[in-house]
């Protein structure tokens, strides 16, 4: 690995509410020369903790098809090629469901009569700013929109390779998560030692393995629940990078929108060590 190249680390989880944002913001702010990138565009919340000054905003559009009735003969080719069931053609009438459209452009490309024109549809915004020395980027999907990946891709375009990037990913195991963690150097999976936490961790680990990304686990509220998460990680050779206890103090800090590393400065070192461990795992993958 080249020395100059900075890591892009994504923070994900199968289950929601395990502490992705807590890890992402505290890790980012414990480091220098860093970017914090909130890719959870359906519910971005990193800004609550780091209170950035927003310096620029960009509107994100996707192209959606509009049929020129004068040219369309209702052949149905657009319906056949749409992978997302966003088009129906019945009685030679083309019905478009823009909310299902991914903006891939296949219908426009394959229409034999050039009857499809594309219209820009606004789906969200990207905001760029900073908080102290930390660069900040996040995306916001417009209310009522379902297609978050184009907004996530637009957010990721602002990754600056000269800085370490910490990405807060959405929860789950579907397209938005894949889009957020794709092409990152390392994935932190945050979990809690409960049956739900473990079930969703296993699903997330399968996804990350399929994507061939190096990853490790952080167990949040680690003194709750049972030992099954530890046993799973040991059995699967997944490094447990950090444990955060179930603490009323930490819960209070979070509820006030504060940073753990500011109120409990001893955590600065813990998060910096987390980063070092990731560098090591990244260099010597198991």
């Amino acid at each position, binding site marked *: 690995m080249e020395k100059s190249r900075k890591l892009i680390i994504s923070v994900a989880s199968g289950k929601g509410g395990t502490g992705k944002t807590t890890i992402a913001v505290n890790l980012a702010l414990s480091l220098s020369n860093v970017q914090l990138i909130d890719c959870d565009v359906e519910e971005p919340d990193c800004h609550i903790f780091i209170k950035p000054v927003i310096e620029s905003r960009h509107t994100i559009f996707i192209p959606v098809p509009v049929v020129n009735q004068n040219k369309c003969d209702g052949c149905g080719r657009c*319906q056949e090629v749409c992978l*997302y*069931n*966003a*088009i*129906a*053609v*019945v*009685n030679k*009438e083309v*019905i478009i*469901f823009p909310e*299902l459209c991914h903006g891939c452009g296949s219908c426009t490309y394959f229409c034999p009569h050039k009857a499809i024109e594309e219209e820009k549809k606004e789906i969200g915004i990207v905001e760029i700013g900073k908080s102290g020395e930390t660069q900040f980027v996040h995306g916001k999907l417009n209310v009522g929109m*379902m297609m978050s990946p184009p907004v996530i891709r637009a957010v990721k375009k602002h990754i600056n390779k000269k800085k370490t990037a910490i990405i807060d990913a959405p929860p789950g195991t579907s397209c938005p998560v894949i889009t957020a963690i794709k092409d990152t150097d390392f994935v932190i999976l945050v979990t809690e030692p409960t049956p739900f936490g473990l079930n969703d961790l296993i699903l997330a680990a399968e996804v990350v393995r399929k994507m061939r990304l190096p990853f490790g686990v952080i167990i949040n509220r680690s003194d709750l629940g049972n030992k099954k998460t530890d046993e799973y990680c040991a059995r699967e050779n997944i490094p447990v990078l950090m444990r955060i206890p179930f603490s009323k103090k930490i819960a209070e800090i979070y509820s006030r929108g504060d940073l753990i590393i500011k109120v409990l400065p001893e955590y600065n070192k813990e998060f910096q060590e987390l980063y070092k461990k990731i560098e090591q795992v990244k260099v010597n993958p198991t």
Partner: protein
Amino acid sequence: MKVAITSSGPTLQSNVDPRFGRCPYYIIYDTEDGSFKAVENKSNLAAGGAGIQAGQNISDMKVEAVITGNVGPNAFRVLSAAFIKIYSGASGSVKDAIEKLKKGEYRETAGPDVGSHFGMGR
């Protein structure tokens, strides 16, 4: 008249499946001669737009009416554009549903009766 009944299985004894877009089978029944065939619903595993795809398939089969439990807004739009009659609120066996249709016990549905994603189990 060809009628499509959303079904949990491939026979007339199967129960009507309440989901239009995500039922496992359609029974395509011909009211003229009483013949029927079972068609697997290939759109029931679609990530999104199952109702739209199902509406398209039903329309392509030249069906004139649909009997089902519920129909969502997108499927309703496709079926309406195809001038397919919709009888929703059906339950019990497919055979009973056909008998009820023959006796004129169903009233045509005027609008979608569930929201999007009803059939996705969440």
